[in-house]
């Protein structure tokens, strides 16, 4: 049987979900035999090729992240949101109760350690979106594994179900938001 092609990305996040992913322990060995990671933050492959499963960690907070998730969505058949940021907006979404200008001003000018700060305007720096969005507000998402970070059990469950050809819904007993 051909290996299932998987691509993972991390967007606005702390990478904790990918770390938690590594906490599935020996299941990772089984997994390696079943899936092929076509793109992930670890493989350092930057472009997208069509895959079966796309996994997104993190929320969408700037133009680049929006492009990345749209490209991933375009290239995958099933998109899984991994972690609270991707599912709900998470910690990154804390900025949503402020307006964008204030957030930038705070970050680049007002922090006590900043000397003569200015807000970066270079086109190379992706512009912030007005708000931080969970993945499903930008693209269609097929399944979700919430958690900050998700329980390794939940990740394992999600992947096992996907490999079995089912769309997973994390059961109550291993679902956690924090």
């Amino acid at each position: 049987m051909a290996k299932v092609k998987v691509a993972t990305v991390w967007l606005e996040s702390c990478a904790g979900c990918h770390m938690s992913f590594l906490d599935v322990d020996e299941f990772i060995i089984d997994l390696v035999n079943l899936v092929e990671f076509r793109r992930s933050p670890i493989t350092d492959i930057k472009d997208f090729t069509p895959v079966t499963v796309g996994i997104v960690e993190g929320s969408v907070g700037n133009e680049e992240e929006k492009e990345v998730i749209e490209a991933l969505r375009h290239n995958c058949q099933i998109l899984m949101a991994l972690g609270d940021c991707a599912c709900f907006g998470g910690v990154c979404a804390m900025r949503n109760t402020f307006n964008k200008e204030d957030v930038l001003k705070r970050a680049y000018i007002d922090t006590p350690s900043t000397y003569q700060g200015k807000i970066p305007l270079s086109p190379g720096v992706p512009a912030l979106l007005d708000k931080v969005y969970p993945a499903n507000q930008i693209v269609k998402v097929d399944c979700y594994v919430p958690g900050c970070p998700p329980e390794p059990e939940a990740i394992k469950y999600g992947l096992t179900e996907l490999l079995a050809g089912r769309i997973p819904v994390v059961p109550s007993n291993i679902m956690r938001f924090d």
Partner: protein
Amino acid sequence: MSEIRLLINGKQVTGQQGDSVLDVCIANGVDLPTLCHYKGLTDVGACRLCLVEIEKERNFVPACTHPARDGQVVTTSNEKLEKYRRLILELLFTERNHLCAYCVASGDCELQSLAYKYQMDNARYQYAWPTQVTDSSNPFIVLDHNRCILCGRCIRTCDEITGAHALDFGKRGWKTNVCADINQPLGESSCISCGGCFQACPTGAIFSKASAYRGKPEECTTVESTCAICGVGCEIKGLVKNNRVVRIDSADMTRPRGLLCEMGRFEPLYDSADRVTTPLKRNSKGQLAGCSYEEAFAAIAKKFDASDSVSGLASGKASSEALKAFAELMDKIGSKLVDTLDGDDYRTISQGIAKFDGKAGLDIEARLEDILTADCIVVIGAHPTKSHPVIGSYIMRAASKNKAQLIVLDPLRNPFTFRASVWLKPPEGKKGLAVKALGKAIIDHGLPKAAGDKSKFSADFKNVDVKKASQDLGIDVHDITKAAQILAESRNSIIIYGSGILAYKDADLVATILNLAALVGDKPRVISLKRYGNSRGAWELGLGNPRAPVASDLAKGKAKGLYLLLADDLTESQVLADSLKGVEFTVVQASYLSPVTARADIVLPSMLWTESKGSYTTIDGLSKKTAPMVKAHTDIKTDADTLKEVARCLKK
């Protein structure tokens, strides 16, 4: 109450006439999600999670408000209901800023638990991200509107349980918010910080500063105990983690002694002052320095054995066990000069009672629960919201829920004057005349016929001219007659008096109050507010009956030695310290370092009520026991043990 039979989810169950469908479900172990329902509060049907399908009903109905009827066929779960519930949860999550990862209530949140239960792994709606404020102006409670789901449990608790009604909904619709008074910061409002809202809040919208992030309930051990602070004897449940009380809840807010107040709920979570951690002894340089128990005991024995004038003074905050050991110690010393800090109050009350009926028993006083059923409450010279907040709540509840008439007799404004039917404002010092005028007015109005012969009690008021008194008092005569009319027509009145009366040390005045009560009731219902959590316990041990009040001895400089059992009492410590000036040798047994301990020659450590097992007698004479929630941080003895050890070391 008759039994009814229902079919819930195909199962025959029984309930009582008058139950709601939800009551029946709960009683029969049928699981139904709820957020706005809270035991003991009126149901409002706001969260719509407990919607059920009942045969012959046109729409789904909320189980919490729907009366259960015989023969009802109820379905609590079907595809539609489950779908609606999940949709409602998604709405609640996205309405405000609910993100569990950084919420204080995560792990102790009903909203979160339901989200897990309904496998809510995402929200299809965009979060609204409203800019809500976090109000941390109250010293104990934070009101974080970001987490509020507007279930109204806090509001109903504040109104129905606490009786304060400091909270209500403000604005309308999607702009609705929980507001205190005129949308003021909680800390500047009429909130009495009882913390009932915090206990009732299903999410992290209201939380206690001292409890936040100190431990989730699942990580804590729970200890059932009684609050020993003020003498109401509220039943509490302490949550303890790492030998620290992280949260105190009422064991059951629906029970009369389950209200809790600012003191009981929050005081034990804070360190009030530096603790006395070991025995201290004044050294050669005149400084207090740590020593062993043995050294301290030896020093005490040496002094007391040599002295023929040792006085004993105990605080009503100590447990009955400690007080008993204290009495025994003083017996052994042979001192007749033993008193409590509030001994004057006792003497005023008991002599007053004696003047009223010849006996001196406190048993004549009413029960606190009587306040809740009273139809008329007279508050004379007392500020229970300050001294005994829970009693304040009883009064507020009786006034708002039972529409009890409230009569306040006090020169100063207090929270009750606001709800009082009549507020009589006698000038300071003329409260007695006011009481008498009121009594006379009642007699003038005509006493309740059924009550029998009242001539014995009415004698006290005979010589009063209401009109003239009203002029003297500067009170509108109509107010007096109105109050008299209310009282005369009430069937179930109660009178509460406190420090404002006791300060006069006038036993006649107390007797007059009792006479007044006796005029309108078949038996006089009166409660006096006592200063300490175990005042009554101390008095009943005989500690309030010295040959002469110790305080005057101290003032006259007669006492050569003094044993002061202070326990965790920090009240008036400067005044007390000053009165110790003339004493040659003072032993203070206390929990905290204070001006009093600074004056002492020997200081012995005392446990807090949260650290020890003890008995306490409530204001109305019930015996309540505390259980240790935490261990004292250093190896100290219980108060009773300490006192017994001291006695053992004495040679007398």
